[in-house]
């Protein structure tokens, strides 16, 4: 992920000066690879359900990071980066809603 380091804080311009959108191409390749790996692991039942679920979730999170950093230019823009704080808070609340709901709705309950 050395490409990411180029986008140092406060750096307002684009880091790709050349004639090829290398960042985008690399991001695309990584995202396709991550997708295919996840698919492959599931179809091959490569591990137990719990381990498999955790693995594909990790792959999904990596995929999100690719989108955010390579395509959405999340680190761009001058000044304080409030949108990063809000996104972080957003992800915390996303986790709260999903994990909280599952916890509350299934606590001690049998599956239907």
């Amino acid at each position: 992920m050395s490409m990411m380091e180029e986008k140092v804080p406060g750096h307002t311009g684009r880091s790709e000066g050349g004639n090829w959108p290398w960042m985008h191409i690399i991001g695309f390749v990584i995202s396709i690879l991550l997708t295919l790996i996840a698919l492959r692991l599931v179809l091959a039942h490569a591990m137990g359900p719990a381990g498999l679920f955790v693995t594909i979730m990790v792959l999904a999170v990596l995929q999100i990071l690719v989108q955010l950093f390579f395509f959405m230019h999340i680190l761009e823009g001058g000044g304080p980066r409030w949108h990063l704080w809000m996104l972080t808070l957003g992800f915390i609340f996303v986790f709260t809603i999903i994990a909280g709901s599952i916890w509350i709705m299934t606590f001690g309950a049998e599956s239907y």
Partner: protein
Amino acid sequence: MPDDTLNVSHFLVTGDPLIYGADVSIVVVSIAIVAVLTYYRKWGWLWREWLTTVDHKKIGIMYMIAALLMLFRGGVDALLMRTQLAFPNMRFLKAEHYNQIFTTHGTIMILFMAMPFIFAMMNIAIPLMIGARDVAFPYLNAISFWMFFFGAMLFNLSFVIGGSPDAGWTSYPPLAESEFNLGPGENYYLLALQISGIGSIATGINFFVTILKMRAPGMTLMRMPLFCWAVLATSVLIIFAFPVLTVALALLLIDRIAGAHFFTMLGGGNPMMYINMFWIWGHPEVYIVVLPAFGIFSEVVATFSGKRIFGYASMVASLMAIAVISYFTWLHHFFTMGAGPGVNSFFALSTMIIAIPTGVKIFNWLATMYNGRVRVTVPMKWALGFIPNFAVGGATGVMLSVAPADYQYHNSYFLIAHFHQTLIGGVVFGMLAGMYYWWPKMFGFLLEERYANWGFWWFNIGFYVCFIPQYLLGFMGMTRRIYTYPTGMGWSTLNLISTIGAFMMGLGFLFIAAGIVYSIFYGERDTTGDPWNGRTLEWSLPSPAPHYNFARIPVVTSRDAWWTMKEERKQGVLPPGRDELRPIHMPKNSGRPFILSLSFFVAGFGLVFHWYILTVIGFAAVAACLLLRSFDYDTDSYIPVDEIKKTEASYGRS
């Protein structure tokens, strides 16, 4: 609820003299409004100055008028309920009618009174306080208002067309599902909240961006007035809480319209999931409405104590802590669901923890007054009335947060008394304080004190007379939402006292309203722009502020910026040489937000009655409005320097 499958005899609600009375009064009032506007040839004025405005100050005023009207309607609902409960075995209201009234009372008070009231205060004060000329997205701001307005219209329409919702303001399934609640009332509820909810999310985003990005030079975050911090925290909560309500309501609507099985009893649905999601929104919502009130109290207490607010940093920290922690407490609304000791303990603890930052704030207000030169003006009276009131409400809240004990209090009148104490004692007191405080800034005259004092005392004393007996009734086993009770329960005396208190509050409201009417004619004009000897930037402007707010954007050097400027002037420090006036870039008025929201209203009305053609027409109009906006490049203009000079001169300023 009569099962109104759609036929003409059921379309208009019939059969109850109260409703006929309402029908007649609505028609009469509508005709009167049309007649007055036509007679005085005010249609053009109404359209140009109000319906198409994107000016935050005017939008704020419209929010406030709407909130006061809704306070009246919700208040009448409350008085009807209290009349029904005044004596045992009363036959004033029928059971279904009572159900409708407690449903509309709750929904209106939270979503169509408290929400617009906080939006009113935000719109009126925030841009002026941070030294901006408008909010970040003025056009979106107009959309927000009209979405709220038409949502409220749709909701209130249910009273005369089709029948009001009657499943409680929380609208829990399975009662709210079509198996048990066929009529259009429930659809009205779902769609009205959905439409106004879109507006609320947009407002949250708008003010978040405004506060973070539109501050005058030199106004760092830690120099902002506390009201700005409170609104920032509220905006964060709106942004993250309202989408959950959107989903909960949408899924219930899909259940009702498309026969899905989210919350049904059959087909694998789980009604508790709705309750879970409703409160993921519902608990932050409580703080969404109360944090701006805290902000207003901070401004009012500081101004009328003639001191800087005590413990500014701790105030900011506690606001932010409340904002985040409030997202982790939602289950305490349904401890009795029985999710188990692990879940209940977690949420009981998080609920108790949130009392700590709230307590910090109370002590800071007290410390601000300590050793201050306190002027007991009307806004200050509401702030002083708030403190003991909210302290009791907070203490009973901690009692409720103890999960095992909650099994006793749950859905009893103890709970009713508790949340009215926080919502009236916190939010309504706060908004009224804000209204009296900023009224001169909005309209250029002060509200008369005598009426305001009568209003305050009747409302404040009436509050305790109304709700303290309800705590006791809760202990005595009276549950919420019962429409009558037999003699011999030992509840009769306390209920009668409570009803008397409710009418005292109603009288207080009448005094407040009468005071407003009186002041329009005889109120003291505010010629200085700074009638309270204020501390923050809005008081540096003339009252009412010109539509561009600041001819020159102020440069801020400290907290309580206007106070510092006044002190420096007293010490003979001259303000630094002022820049030349420059043309000011302002957004143009637009009728599209109004038409867009009207289209949503049409689409929603169609969905209520399953008239899908109307829905399609409505949404087509929505799409057309959005596309027209996208292709519209003529959205703003410049005010030339001459005009600014003329306007400033008319205020006696250069």
